[in-house]
């Protein structure tokens, strides 16, 4: 097995690296109270949101950048980031119909494979398109409304449904939860909001598509999903960014709330620009994602395919408070070139009979480093809690690293916790076997890697699985061609 073939596998060209020419509103760089008030003013927010932002900013000022993670990078200059980026055409106003949206942007999404015209779309997916700091357009809004499902941008929700937003915003990820969550709470721009009322199964898949286009700005997405009693929703998220030689920051906060018998499935395909072979450019992805199983018998499931970003720092977690609640985490993280990923999950068992499953697959190549960091905590009240974790790593080449840091704590003797991890590489014998069955070496490697990630990929919703396959295909390109 030649190492070159393996290495070329992960060296596929980044297809989403183009830039869209749009005119931006002037907005000063840096962060201070005035800037935060200005963001709030431009978004025409009520007083309590401004207060929320300012309190978060006060907390953030007191905090230090975390350094416990296993990634190394030059600390971003927080005074040199543009915290808000609006296109001139929209200027903070929400488009009434697609005609109001800059055609350049519509063309961009079309290029990315996400047509915003409803008739062109796959039936069954409603999309919220977010371009830099603004939500551009949300499709199928009316249709969803018939069922009582609210799906819109968070800015819109703050205006139209303040009582719901106020009730839940910051209750899963508090303002001062961590450094990046506090920063996000202070300057968050846009993101998706979804509310599924009682006894409702959301009739279609919901999706957000995040695009960073402005080289100067960061993206501070804020997503809030609430699933009432006996309801169910599946939400997808995709991310891309152009190639710049400088780095961009993406510091998002995602909060999920599941009440009694509710079920939320959250899937991410993260494909931000990862920088070039020398580690120039790329997106710094510092994300706080957390779900709260508040009601009994609720379920939250995270699935992620992480292929992009120069730095990934992301731990989608579940707080299992309701009795019999279920938390799941399925992850594939692929790093190549100089990418660094420190990702994993937290499962906090509080309620009785709570169960959680963690399946994490890390693939590292080039000079990248891929870490799994996870915490499973069983509190003394969590009778009969169960956790099962598997984290497997695969190394391709001799210059990359794979790391596993699982933290496990149990204070309840009736709980069962099982954790296993392994590190290995694409076996010579496996390749040999496939080759003698008539496959080329490249096909064999591709098949083995896909098989390695299969446990996670099969968790993705159908519509997304196609995209994920394509995405892995891009990363794996070169091996097949």
């Amino acid at each position, binding site marked *: 097995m030649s190492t070159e073939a393996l290495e070329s596998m992960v060296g596929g060209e980044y297809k989403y690296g183009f830039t869209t020419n749009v005119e931006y509103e002037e907005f000063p760089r840096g962060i201070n109270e005035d800037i935060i008030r200005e963001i709030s003013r431009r978004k025409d927010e009520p007083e309590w949101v401004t207060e929320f932002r300012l309190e978060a900013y006060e907390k953030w000022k007191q905090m230090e950048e975390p350094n416990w993670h296993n990634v190394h990078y030059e600390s971003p200059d927080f005074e040199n980031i543009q915290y808000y980026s609006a296109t001139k055409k929209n200027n903070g106003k929400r488009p009434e119909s697609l005609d109001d949206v800059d055609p350049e942007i519509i063309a961009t999404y079309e290029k990315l494979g996400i047509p915003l015209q409803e008739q062109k779309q796959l039936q069954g997916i409603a999309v919220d398109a977010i371009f830099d700091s603004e939500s551009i357009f949300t499709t199928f809004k009316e249709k969803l409304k018939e069922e009582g499902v609210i799906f819109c941008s968070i800015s819109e929700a703050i205006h139209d449904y303040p009582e719901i937003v106020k009730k839940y915003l910051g209750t899963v990820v508090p303002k001062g939860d961590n450094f990046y969550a506090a920063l996000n709470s202070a300057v968050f721009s846009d993101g998706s909001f979804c509310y599924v009322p009682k006894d409702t199964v959301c009739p279609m898949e919901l999706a957000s598509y995040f695009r960073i286009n402005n080289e100067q700005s960061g993206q501070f997405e804020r997503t809030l999903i609430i699933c009432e009693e006996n309801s169910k929703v599946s939400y997808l998220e995709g991310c891309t960014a152009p190639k710049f030689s400088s780095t961009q920051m993406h510091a998002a906060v995602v909060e999920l709330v599941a009440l009694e018998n509710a079920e939320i499935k959250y899937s991410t395909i993260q494909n931000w620009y990862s920088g070039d072979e020398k580690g120039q450019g790329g997106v710094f992805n510092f994300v706080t994602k957390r779900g709260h199983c508040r009601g009994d018998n609720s379920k939250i499931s995270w699935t992620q395919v992480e292929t992009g970003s120069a730095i990934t720092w992301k731990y989608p977690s579940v707080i299992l408070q309701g009795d019999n609640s279920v938390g799941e985490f399925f992850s594939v993280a692929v790093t190549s070139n100089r990418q660094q990923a420190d990702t994993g999950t937290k499962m906090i068992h509080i309620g009785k009979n709570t169960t959680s499953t963690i399946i994490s697959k890390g693939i590292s190549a080039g000079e990248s480093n891929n870490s799994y960091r996870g915490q499973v905590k069983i509190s003394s009240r969590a009778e009969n809690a169960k956790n099962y974790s598997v984290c497997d790593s695969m190394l391709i080449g001799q210059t990359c690293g*794979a790391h596993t840091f699982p933290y496990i*704590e149990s*204070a*309840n*003797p009736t*709980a069962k*916790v*099982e954790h296993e991890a392994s*590190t*290995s590489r694409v076996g010579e014998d496996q390749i040999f076997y496939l080759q003698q069955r008539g496959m080329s070496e490249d096909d064999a490697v591709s098949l083995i890697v896909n098989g390695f990630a299969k446990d996670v990929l099969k968790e993705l919703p159908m519509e997304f699985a196609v995209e994920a396959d394509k995405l892995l295909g891009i990363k794996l390109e070169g091996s097949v061609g």
Partner: protein
Amino acid sequence: MTTLKKKEQTFLIDLLDFQDSLNGNSEFVDNVRMKGADEVRNTPFPHSKDEEWRFISLRDLYSDSYQHVSVLEEKDPDLRDYFLPECANSRLVFINGVFSIKHSSVEALPDDIVIDSLARLAASDNPLVKEHLNKYTTFEGDVFSSFSDAFLQDGAFIYVPKGRKIDTPIHLLFVQTEADITYFTTSHSVIVADEGSEITVVEDHIGLGDNKYFNLPVVEVSAGKEAYVKHTKIQRDSQEAIHIARTSAFVEKHANYESYTITIGAKLSRNEPRISQRDEEVKFTVDGLVLIDGEQVSDTHSVMDHRFPHCESHQLHKCVIIDKAHSVFNGKIFVRPHAQKIDSFQENRNLLLSRKGLVNTKPQLEIFADDVVCTHGATIGQLDEEEVFYLKSRGLNEKQAKELLIYAFALETIENITVDSVQKLLVDEVHNFTERQLHSEFTI
């Protein structure tokens, strides 16, 4: 609060005053002590915010005031119960950190092996001591090993020459006596197995009373080329003691190092076995068994450092926790760049049998080479009800069934110990422990 905090920072530095009470030895030893003392002054005391110390509190250690063990009167306890029959004439005994010639005997061992008290060898300027002391440690920047250096006095020194295979196991018995004062004691042992030699060592720490003391043993092992070293450590310190141990081993080409650490005693114990692969094609084992009850805290932080290609390593760490005991495990497997063809296995299994018990475990892999097979696993749970039921259906009562299952759980780590009397002793300990478990008020 501020006074306590200050106490924590200066705790070990204050104790350096007792350096004066050490016997003068040789210039070599004096230099080691001086260097150690300097390091203690310049190294911060571990804080619970340090990643390596985050699960336990050292308050029990630093909140007390200690005197050096040398202030105690010389004692001559009856130790016959603690002697191992296999080691009747291959035994070194240290009472309160000082070699006891009366209880020791090495007659069963061949003449060409060097086995003696470190203090005696150092006093006679033995070149072997100078050559090997502190050569096999990997504890740079660790305040406790520096502290041990600052109080370097005695310990076992064993040198097995080339090709010498010793069948008789060697018993190193470290005895702490009962005392009215709270004291601290250190020991430093060196075990060097030269090319092609074989040796079995039982390191045994015993507390005779229920008193509080701080025991800090350092053991360094060199398994030379093609050597085979079997090292069993039994920690039976008093139930109030604090035991902070540093063990490090260098494993050379084609060598095999097996270590089994059994933790039964001490209120707070911390073991840090660090195994360093020094050349290609080696094998090592770092197994452990922890049986704790009451308010005992046992913490194991191990490092398996794979630095060269071709290595087979194994770690099975098992803990049984009852009452309010707290068990901590952090096992690190490092595979350095270019250390290909490593087969490393690590497993931590915890039997949490009480409502008030707590387990923290953090198995950890850090891999920088691609052609390796490294696995780790961790489980926390209780006895399987179905297994208990099955045994009851076979005529055992509940107590017998549970005892049998706990015994079976523990046995896996004991059965590889080759010294029969040690195995028997541990089987008895497991039995006693199970008895206690059945009477614990927190048992589920």
